[in-house]
């Protein structure tokens, strides 16, 4: 099978190729799952919902998807530090409640602000973790072909995917232009203002060069029938089983129940 087996250095997405139940789910199902988890953790009227979701849903799912190691690495290196930062900012600067636990210079830390910050941090963790899990187990082209099949305009899908791919290329090109300008005496290493000023000669070649490229690329994809009015087909067969349908409806139902409970209890 010609399904995405790529050496690490050529990888441009988060996707990790594994053979797992999560990989075999339909991309839309996974997207529904992710959005469902996010909505439930944000809308649930109970304080501990995001914490519980993380423990009973997201961590186990990373093991089901056989991407536990990759997930944990992203979690510890990226998600946890970012969420901790958020937690401290909110805990210190949220002027709510009067049960002061301790004082730090002019800052009052109250029990309320601590609880508030903790929940918000957990919500963010749930959101970013579930998207990470989604990206780790879903190939971008598979996601886009599936969404296109369901009616997403192919132009839209193209813009998303090609941006993901072309960004590293543009970065490389910017490096080349910087090197070329520096070899002609452009100062890129002194004071901040100087450097900001020296960005201008880089923008011209990069932007105008890219505009020319856009025209050529438009011709290239046009030459391959991009705007053809025929019904498009897909190289890959994207799974969509009864389980997928059931999961999607279950999650939609859970979200609706959460919203109802939230309205009812408040």
């Amino acid at each position, binding site marked *: 099978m010609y399904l*995405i087996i790529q050496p690490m250095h050529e990888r441009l997405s988060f996707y990790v190729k594994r053979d797992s139940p999560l990989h075999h789910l339909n991309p839309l199902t996974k997207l529904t799952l992710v959005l469902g988890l996010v909505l439930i953790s944000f809308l649930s009227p109970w304080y501990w919902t995001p914490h519980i979701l993380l423990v009973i849903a997201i961590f186990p799912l990373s093991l089901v998807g056989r991407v536990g190691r990759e997930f944990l690495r992203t979690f510890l290196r990226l998600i946890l530090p970012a969420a901790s930062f958020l937690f401290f900012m909110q805990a210190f600067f949220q002027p709510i409640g009067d049960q002061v636990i301790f004082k730090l210079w002019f800052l009052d830390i109250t029990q309320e602000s601590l609880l508030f910050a903790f929940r918000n941090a957990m919500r963010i963790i749930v959101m970013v973790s579930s998207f990470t899990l989604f990206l780790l187990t879903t190939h971008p*082209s598979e996601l886009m*072909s599936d969404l296109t099949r369901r009616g997403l305009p192919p132009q839209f899908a193209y813009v998303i*995917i090609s941006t993901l791919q072309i960004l590293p290329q543009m970065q490389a090109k910017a490096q080349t232009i910087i090197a070329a300008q520096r070899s002609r005496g452009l100062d890129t290493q002194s004071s901040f203002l100087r450097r900001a000023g020296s960005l201008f000669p880089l923008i011209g070649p990069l932007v105008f060069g890219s505009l020319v490229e856009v025209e050529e690329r438009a011709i*290239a*994809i046009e*030459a391959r029938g991009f705007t053809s009015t025929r019904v498009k087909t897909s*190289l890959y067969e994207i799974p969509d089983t009864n389980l997928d349908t059931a999961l999607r409806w279950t999650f939609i139902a859970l979200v609706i129940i959460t919203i109802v409970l939230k309205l009812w209890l408040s």
Partner: protein
Amino acid sequence: MAIVNLQNITYKYPLTDAPALQNMDLQVNEGEFVAIIGPNGAGKSTLCYTLAGFVPHFFKGELTGVVEVAGVESHNSSLSEWVSNVGLAFQNPFNQISGAKYTVFEELAFGLENTGVPRDEMKARVEDAMQLTGISDLAERSPYSLSGGQQQRVALTSILVMQPKVLVLDEPTSQMDPIGTREVFGVIHRMAERGMTVILAEHKVEWIAQFADRVIALKDGQILLDGTPSKVLTSPILPANGFGISRYTSAARKAQAMGLWKKDGLPVTLDEAVEGFSNEGAE
């Protein structure tokens, strides 16, 4: 039988006064390999775009005359229908990568997905085309990780897989190193040998002399010369009009002026030059 038929074509790009092509007539027979040469600005690319339907469907502007390929008139066709008859590849291999695909195999299938080819046929056609252009071993690579020559072969294959009747190539080797050039010409030659109609705009006259059936010299949007490679490429009109010519031709012409080259025609390729000079020596 003429598969390509241009009658009295005149075309102006939007916002320009001078026509890029002027009163051009051109017939190309099925299976013919035609090379187009000309200095920069002579209209080579515009002619390629016209044949491939991008003039007038993509570039707009003002086109008069008849453009007909395989019996269909360009004015009466949409671009997406036209490209299934005429395939176009051009200079920069990097810009011909769709950017929407992660492997070469997917990249090659892109055009077939767009035109609604069923999955089994799609896979078979991609595999055949890769075999033909010798890139089967690249199937799982990312198109962006390839060398220029490899990328250009991928770009060519991505057009061939759509099985066009006419292949139009706009300076496909101008950004290639000698190895890349040889690889790309190898593919073009193989396509021509299989009976595909090939129209190639190209500067590298020594390669043209080896493979093309016919050479057309363009100047200021008009056809200056039209004939066999040995006739057109050695014509004294070319250097006088700013065309690049083969170094073997210019060497032999100098030798001729000094009375050292006694054969009738001038050489274009190394082999012809060697043969001509060694015959002189033998006499």
